[in-house]
């Protein structure tokens, strides 16, 4: 059983509880265990960085140091948390001064940032550690009937200087996983585009236009559902779907699933078990 320090994203603790719930359901089937980091703090979204770069380094240095103390890699299932914590890690790894400054503070709590733990997305763990072949073998209920529109979201891809795993403009990882689960992914131009979440509260009209376009393309391509590895994308594409489509005069609707949910479905769990009933758009 390979263990990971599992970072608790704020949104997965409140609006999208189904993400963690479904991971808990199937993690052992795939030989992994996500150890919840109860002592972690909010990563600051992509906002804290420019309010105060040093607090930003401190909070996320502390998050990583907590994982390091347990000797585990830090795993997240929210794109923006991933990007944010990784960019803090990059800054800390590149600057000894910054490292020293936060360690001086963290030491009092018995923590030290050393840079030994990796910060990874759940999707990456599934592909790199569990392996697509293993996943393929474990699938009980292949998604073969589904035409899936993969939606990567931005912060698992960009900035590539921080993420650096997939091609930032032509990604393939999510497609590969969905393929292993037996699903059929459709060619889908919006798959690497933005959901609009981060301006939702600042420029709502713009944000929802962005979301509407992605939804529209998926519907036009006759997808049965959209799958995303990011709860923020999910919030916009699912929670705000009605409003976004209405604002743009588009008819219809399309279900949006979390990555963790489709993994669960393929491994044989029911939509009720996985919490899919919690979605706004009926699946």
């Amino acid at each position, binding site marked *: 059983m390979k263990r990971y320090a599992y970072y*608790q994203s*704020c*949104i997965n*603790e*409140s*609006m999208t509880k189904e993400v963690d719930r479904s991971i808990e359901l199937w993690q052992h089937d795939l030989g992994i265990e996500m150890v919840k980091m*109860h*002592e*972690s*703090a*909010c990563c*600051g*979204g*992509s*906002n*804290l960085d*420019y*309010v*105060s*770069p*040093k*607090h930003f380094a*401190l*909070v996320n240095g*502390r998050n990583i140091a907590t994982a390091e103390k347990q000797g585990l890699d830090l795993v997240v299932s929210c794109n923006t948390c991933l990007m944010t914590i990784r960019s803090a890690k990059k800054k800390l790894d590149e600057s000894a001064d910054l490292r020293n*400054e*936060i360690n001086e*503070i*963290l030491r*009092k*709590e018995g923590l030290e940032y050393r840079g030994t733990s990796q910060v990874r997305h759940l999707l990456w763990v599934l592909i790199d550690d569990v392996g697509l072949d293993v996943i393929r073998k474990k699938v009980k209920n292949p998604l073969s009937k589904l035409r899936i529109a993969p939606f990567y979201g*931005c*912060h698992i*891809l*960009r*900035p*590539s*200087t921080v993420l650096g795993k997939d091609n*930032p*403009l*032509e990604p393939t990882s999510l497609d590969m996983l969905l393929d292993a689960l037996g699903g059929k992914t459709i*060619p889908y131009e919006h798959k690497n*585009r*933005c959901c*609009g979440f981060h*301006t939702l*509260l*600042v*420029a*709502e*009209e*713009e*944000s929802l*236009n*962005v979301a509407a376009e992605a939804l529209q393309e998926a519907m036009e391509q006759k997808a049965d559902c959209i799958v995303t590895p990011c709860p923020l994308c999910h919030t916009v594409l699912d*929670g*705000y779907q009605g*409003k976004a489509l209405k604002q743009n005069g588009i008819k219809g609707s399309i279900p949006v699933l979390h990555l963790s949910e489709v993994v669960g479905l393929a491994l044989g769990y029911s939509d009720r078990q996985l919490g899919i009933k*919690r979605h*706004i758009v009926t699946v």
Partner: protein
Amino acid sequence: MSDSTIQHHEESRDVTFRVHRFNPQVDSKPYFDDYTIRLEKGITVLRAINYIKEHVDSSLTFRAFCQAGICGSCAMRINGMSKLACTTQVWDELDKAREPGVIKVEPLRNLPHIKDLVVEMDPLVGKMQKYSNWVDSKMPEEQWGKKEFLVSEEEFLAYDKATDCILCASCVSECTILRAHKEYVSPAVLLKSYRMNVDSRDSIHDQRLAGLVQDHGVWDCTHCYRCQETCVKNIPIMDAIHGIREDAIERRGTKDTSGARHAEAFMEDIEKKGKLVEATLPIRTNGLAWTLKNLLPMAFKMVMKRRTPPPPPLVKASKGIDALRKEFKEMTSHVGKDHEKKSGE
């Protein structure tokens, strides 16, 4: 198969360019033309479409000038991505083609279309003007030419990379928010604004900043980083956008824009609870009235599905919040000292 045939096969092949055509004078809607030509490895997309223009179809229309990646004329979407045709190798694009051997060529997005691969650049120039994308010198014009400003290496480096921009509009074409709203300032204009604002010779920093924090300005960016990944000169555009935001919060506080308040709210929450209090985020970002009007109907639906974020008292503070709070304070005093040092210089 012998080695030489493999080599021969690699050296030249038929390539189809599927080019977006539209001449508003005669066409009622856009269509694609396929041109199949035999090409040798090592050729750029621009040279290929130049060949088509010279030898196959002279009416095919696109912009090109320097052919050396410096004038910014030839940006277009190649296989769906905005880039310079003159620095793009055909063979690289063949690897990415969705249909084997077919390279799709389309005009830039987010700017009005003129003909075939040509789009209107005036809106971009208009925005450069709107956001004062020029240095307004601290030195009065009558004194120009008499002595140089003294500029340190560090001051120079602050804007050096940003001056690489060739205004090709590739980033503009890929921008998420511009696509959603034509008034949006645009990544290239944010970059240029930043470049001007960090120039020690400029005198209208505050005025420019005041313009940038208005509607359709710097706070509308959704940090999708598409602009940065697209930039043909590898300019870290987001550093400029973050730079403007940092600067705005530092100099203007968080009162004047919802974006700034939004950012500040994160800081508050982490200090208090170590967690984001999402339920009150909209209120703090946009005020109560806005929240009631815009979010209540949705909230109703979300409550029905038990999806609303918990109200503040129910957000459990993260474990170890006391330690975190202390550390946060300590860092705040560090930052305070940094500021003193800076202003003492």
